[in-house]
């Protein structure tokens, strides 16, 4: 069977002939055929996307299936060529693996990674007989851009919670610490699950501007992760007024009062949740309960207990919230979150100075290893 071009019913050979004719027509001569072919193919082809699943729960993919901007059917039929996604693709087994490596070795693709890399027990995560370490190491040099969706692929997430039994790491940390990549370039779209609509916004940024968005010190696009949840929260006015929900089931839940006293981690969490929201931009966590800080590296260890208030935040109407038992942990979390972002007065004026503020280190390590 002759190799087909990107246009319906036209062989590659005939396609190049047509391009030669077009090139001659616009004054480039026969030598311009390749340029014309490339330009035409760019318009006609849907960008190839490969979506890897490693140590994950499929939550990010399930969120992708909830995407309405664009609607999923439009996305996979008209906008991208989803050549590999274990939960969506028809093929299985050897044929699935062949789809993966054919696309990866072709080089013309975007790589989306969901899930952490198991480094201490490499066999804790294998696909088609290869460990996540080997697959990631072989794939990383090939794509046009790499996006880590969800906190697993970004920072290791739940399986990296102490004592991190499998040595789960985010992709960038794995590449740097275990694969010898000096300065890995990964766009981190953290949160648990990853927000697929925001991830598609980041992918669109790369496709349109043909460059990476500006990233913060933990690898997240600043245009999405530049502000605290707290600063854009629709309940912020209630925080300022000292209108706090005092217990679950409190009648003031119906008045949309502030979850701060119930443990909301919005004051130390950088994410666009209140702005871009979730599931077709319809809702977000704070409508239903306090934020648990899922966009921050190692949030399972730094943000818990989830139902205890963040200490060292100057909260209107509360004198000296300080649970000494947990202060040590949470001051650390606050410092990491703050230090990572060079934030201005919006946050720092709320700090009582209990915790040391650190300069951003620029290190993308998630510290998820042993």
């Amino acid at each position: 069977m002759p190799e087909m071009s990107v246009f319906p019913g036209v062989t590659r050979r005939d396609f190049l002939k047509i391009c030669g004719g077009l090139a001659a027509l616009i004054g480039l001569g026969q030598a311009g055929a390749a340029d014309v072919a490339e330009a035409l193919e760019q318009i006609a082809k849907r960008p190839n996307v490969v979506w890897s699943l490693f140590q994950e729960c499929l939550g990010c993919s399930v969120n992708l299936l909830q995407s309405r901007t664009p609607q999923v059917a439009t996305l996979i039929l008209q906008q991208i060529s989803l050549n590999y996604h274990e939960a969506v693709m028809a093929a299985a087994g050897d044929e699935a693996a062949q789809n993966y490596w054919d696309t990866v070795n072709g080089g013309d693709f975007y790589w989306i990674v969901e899930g952490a890399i198991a480094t201490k027990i490499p066999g804790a995560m294998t696909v088609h007989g290869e460990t996540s370490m080997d697959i990631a190491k072989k794939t990383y040099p090939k794509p046009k851009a790499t996006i880590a969706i969800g906190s697993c692929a970004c920072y290791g997430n739940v399986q990296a919670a102490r004592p991190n039994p499998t040595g789960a790491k985010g992709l960038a940390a794995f590449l740097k610490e275990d694969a010898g990549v000096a300065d890995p370039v990964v766009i981190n779209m953290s949160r648990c699950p990853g927000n697929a609509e925001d991830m598609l916004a980041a992918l669109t940024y790369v496709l349109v501007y043909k460059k990476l968005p500006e990233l913060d010190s933990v690898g997240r696009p600043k245009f999405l992760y530049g502000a605290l949840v707290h600063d854009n929260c629709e309940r912020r006015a209630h925080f300022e007024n000292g209108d706090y929900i005092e217990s679950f089931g409190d009648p003031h839940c119906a008045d949309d009062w502030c979850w701060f006293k119930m443990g909301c981690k919005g004051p130390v969490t950088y994410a666009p949740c209140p702005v871009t929201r979730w599931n077709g931009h319809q809702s977000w966590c704070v409508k239903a309960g306090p934020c648990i800080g899922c966009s921050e590296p190692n949030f399972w260890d730094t943000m818990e207990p989830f139902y205890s208030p963040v200490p060292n935040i100057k909260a209107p109407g509360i004198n000296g919230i300080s649970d000494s038992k947990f202060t040590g942990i949470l001051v650390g979390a606050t410092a990491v979150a703050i230090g990572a972002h060079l934030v201005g007065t919006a946050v720092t004026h709320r700090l009582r100075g209990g915790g040391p503020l650190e300069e951003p280190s620029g290190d993308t390590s998630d510290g998820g290893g042993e």
Partner: protein
Amino acid sequence: MAKTKVVIDPVTRIEGHLRVTCVVENGKVTDAWNTCTLFRGFEIFMKDRDPRDVWHYTMRICGVCPTPHGWNGVRASEMAMGVDKMDDNTRLIRNMMEASQLAYDHILWFYVLNAFDYVNVPNALKAKPKTPTLKAVQEQLKGFVAAGQLGFLANMYWDHPGYKLPPDLDLELTAHYLQSIEMQQIANDAGGVFLGGKYPMIMNYAPGGCTQLPGIEDILTYKQRMQQVTDFVDTVVVPDLLAIAPYYIGLAQVGKGVGNFLSWGVLDEKSQDPYDRVFPRGGIFGGKLVAEKVDPDETKMYTKTSFFPDSLGAGKHPLDVGQEPQEYVDLAPITGNALPNAKYDWTQAVRYGAQEAPMEVGPLAQMLLAYLAPRPEAVQLVDSTLAAVGAAGHPEILISALGRIVARVLKLKINMDNAQRWADELLANMATGNIAVNSMPEVPDSGEGKGGWDAPRGALCHYVRIKNKKIDSFAAVPASNWNFSPRDDKGVRGPVEEALVGLPVEDPSKPLEILRLVHTFDP
């Protein structure tokens, strides 16, 4: 005669990471092994955590079914904190959340995860569409295929003779596949998004109760969205099942499995008695259609065939087993003749009771137990289905690959009918001034609790033990732990392994039949 090893790795269109190895002789599977190729270690890192936080962790066990994992986590921990019974509003809110999850899950399974095993998408190009909608879908498909980028449809066994549908049905089912994506979103919107904040990973549970009572407008939105989904189930999903079943009636003869069925039950009535649930708790043993009482504490773990020390399991209770993973894992190579090693799975084998029975879990178990209970809505649906296929009075014919598919759709229908009832009961409570949801209990020095509430794909139970106000031991025994159990310490196959044995395979290089059968268990 020819003896062929067949390995499918990765098994796609599932949650998780799975390898299946079969030996095919004379056109039939003669032996089978299933291997989970992922380990994360929840039992290890849950230790010493704050008991109030358990449910946030457990939802991350499965991003496809976080809501029942949330229910089990929150119930196990609140029971360990001394909350024996939920307040009635909490019961109803949790039921509404579960019904929303269940609707999305079964629709997603029927189309996105399962359809490509039966619906030949390229064959839909040959259809002669009768409606403008079907014509538009066909045009879209034509453009997609002609562009030479088959994307997510590439490299499937599309030329396999096992695809039986005429082109017109292939096109119609493909159109419904695309429509189903929007319908599962609407199902999730109802509970997950408008009551739970977002989906997946909801936010409105809390030990003791729920974070808040939903607003009336959110409850009405719930009812409206669930009604949209009900209409889709009645006018599209059920007719689709009836349309394709005659072409695949041979599936009623394969995949019978172990004949033991287990459900912890799901969807609480006012009594909160697990035997009184819409899908009641119970066990069926040896294919004998009698419902017996079952106890989550009779769950026993074995580790001789998994990547843990042999003696770790030895029939112990989940809370007493824990996890000590091997650091070196030796999987048999995919190519060559080598069969799986003695240790071949990250899943620990789980068996029930003194008889150490491997148990099938999932919609077939849930429907059989609802039928036997008897729950009137289940009896009516099962009997009318049996009559329609000329098998009135013979519910045992459901014990097959086809039966699992039918049971999942019937269960979806029952779920939709009850969803409106939970919402109405909650509104009725509110109308009488009952607007209470319990608040968070104090964490005691010590305590023990367990869930026992089925996920859409089957029996799920979380166990929690508190000591010194911290998690001392945590264990999760999810559905795939039962269905995809490896061999136990005595070498007895797990339910999926057993169901695969005897399965006819037309072409071992294109093992469509194996993929189908594995998918009927919704891994």
